[in-house]
């Protein structure tokens, strides 16, 4: 019993120590007024939370992230199934996909801002661009990774190609797609913030930029804390969703004989 509460004690201790160190460093003015004390940040945060603009920014950030994620997921899975199922399509797209995969959306941010302006569409475009390829690649891997024994089983029972695609290939690619989504969901949030911060798109990123430009450091820290919490929520939500959909997969099985 005693052993099981010890981790929590240590965790609380860790968080408390971090806050105290922060407060002390800030009071000592080690970084001038660029490091506001924790107390100031939290009171500022409380005021920010009371403003309508904050909530509409938050809404924009979440809305853009989720909408773009959904778009990327649907498009990515369809493209991935296509690319994974047909060899010629795979070869045709291989070079382009491999080139684009390691290119983060921030690279084309200037272009997006130039063409679409500092708008929600620009943010959406960037997020979709950033999330699409990983989902496509993982789906392709999943299709390719379908167990040949499972495929053969289906074939030996006389199931048709389309039935196999829908009932065997897609489900067995789900863990891969799940992995992609788990990576993509926080990434969607990151890109939405980047689009706001660097491209002026709507949302919390823009607020951070404005706080920084105005030298409003307490708000800056407060907003970053909000983003941290939001990031955690995103991660938790995707993990939960994945667990529900993939409850049958090895990594989620609850009863292991």
């Amino acid at each position, binding site marked *: 019993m005693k052993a099981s509460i010890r981790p929590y004690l240590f965790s609380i201790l860790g968080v408390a120590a971090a806050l105290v160190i922060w407060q002390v460093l800030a009071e000592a003015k080690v970084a001038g007024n660029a490091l506001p004390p924790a107390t100031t940040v939290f009171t500022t945060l409380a005021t920010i939370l009371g403003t309508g603009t904050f909530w509409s920014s938050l809404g924009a950030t979440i809305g853009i992230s989720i909408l773009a994620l959904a778009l990327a997921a649907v498009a990515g899975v369809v493209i991935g199934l296509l690319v994974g199922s047909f060899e010629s399509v795979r070869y045709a797209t291989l070079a382009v996909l491999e080139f684009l995969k390691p290119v983060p959306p921030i690279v084309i941010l200037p272009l997006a801002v130039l063409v679409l302006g500092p708008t929600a569409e620009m943010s959406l475009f960037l997020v979709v661009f950033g999330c699409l390829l990983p989902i496509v690649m993982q789906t392709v891997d999943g299709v390719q990774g379908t167990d040949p024994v*499972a495929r*053969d*089983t289906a074939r*030996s029972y006389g*199931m048709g190609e389309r*039935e196999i695609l829908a009932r*065997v290939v897609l489900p067995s690619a789900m863990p891969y797609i799940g992995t992609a989504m788990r990576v993509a969901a926080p990434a969607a949030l990151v890109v939405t913030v980047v689009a706001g911060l660097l491209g002026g798109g709507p949302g919390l990123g823009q607020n951070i930029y404005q706080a920084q430009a105005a030298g409003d450091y307490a708000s800056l820290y407060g907003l970053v804390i909000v983003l941290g919490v939001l990031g955690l929520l995103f991660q938790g939500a995707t993990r939960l969703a994945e667990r529900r959909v993939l409850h*049958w997969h090895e990594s989620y099985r609850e*009863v292991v004989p």
Partner: protein
Amino acid sequence: MSNRPAPTLPTRNRKSTMAQQPETRVSASTPRLDVSHLAKTYGSGAKARTVIEDLTFTVDAGEIVCIVGPSGVGKTTLLKCLAGLHPATSGRAAIDGRTISGPPSEMALVFQDYNRSLMPWLTVRKNLVLPLRHLKLSAAELKERCDGALAAVCLSHADNQYPWQLSGGMQQRVAIARALAYRPEILIMDEPFASVDAQTRFDLEDLCLKIRRDFAMTILVVTHDIDEAVYLADRVVVLGSRPARVLKVVDVDLPAPRDQITTRSLPEFARQRTEVLSLIKRPA
């Protein structure tokens, strides 16, 4: 072959299996399954690899035939050819005289890797239903078939569980139940009882004999275990060295019904297994 039951004898358990089985009996001279001069080469050109060169044997209706042979000899390859999953390179395999060119509807295959052939995202029952979907059966018929198959393998209680929640032996029985629900006339099993413990193995072997008895199926089993082969089979096909060829077909004359303890302690049993063993054991 005194222990082979007449395949058409209507037993209490056969139920609607009969409907699928042709009423007109194949003449005694046509074997149910006929493999003649079968050859299989993987790849082509420089990478070509001949696994099976010239294989000939037959399986009669209602028989249990076991195939034994060293690992990698090409047993699984042979079964895949029979199941129509790979085309034969030359020679032919035929069911009732019809050459096999795609998965034959009267055949079901139980794969070597049961844990890879069951869909982990489906419950046991849904795994059974999956291959039946395109048969467009009524809901009642679907349920009846699944219930019957699950009962046959004593897994009625597990129908809502996922395969991975079951032990290896139970999973293997699910794979067998799936085949049973499909109501094949010919059941082919690839090392079905590997890596389950001795007790379960005995149970599954007896299940296999029971299925033959109840459903009048023709059964072809690949195994590593010579005792198992002798215990189960009416005939044992012993395969040897690469490329695969038939070393001998051993007729097993053990009385029915067979029993794990009494049958295995018969002197005749020991003789038969020694014969197979000495065929397989390569010179030291």
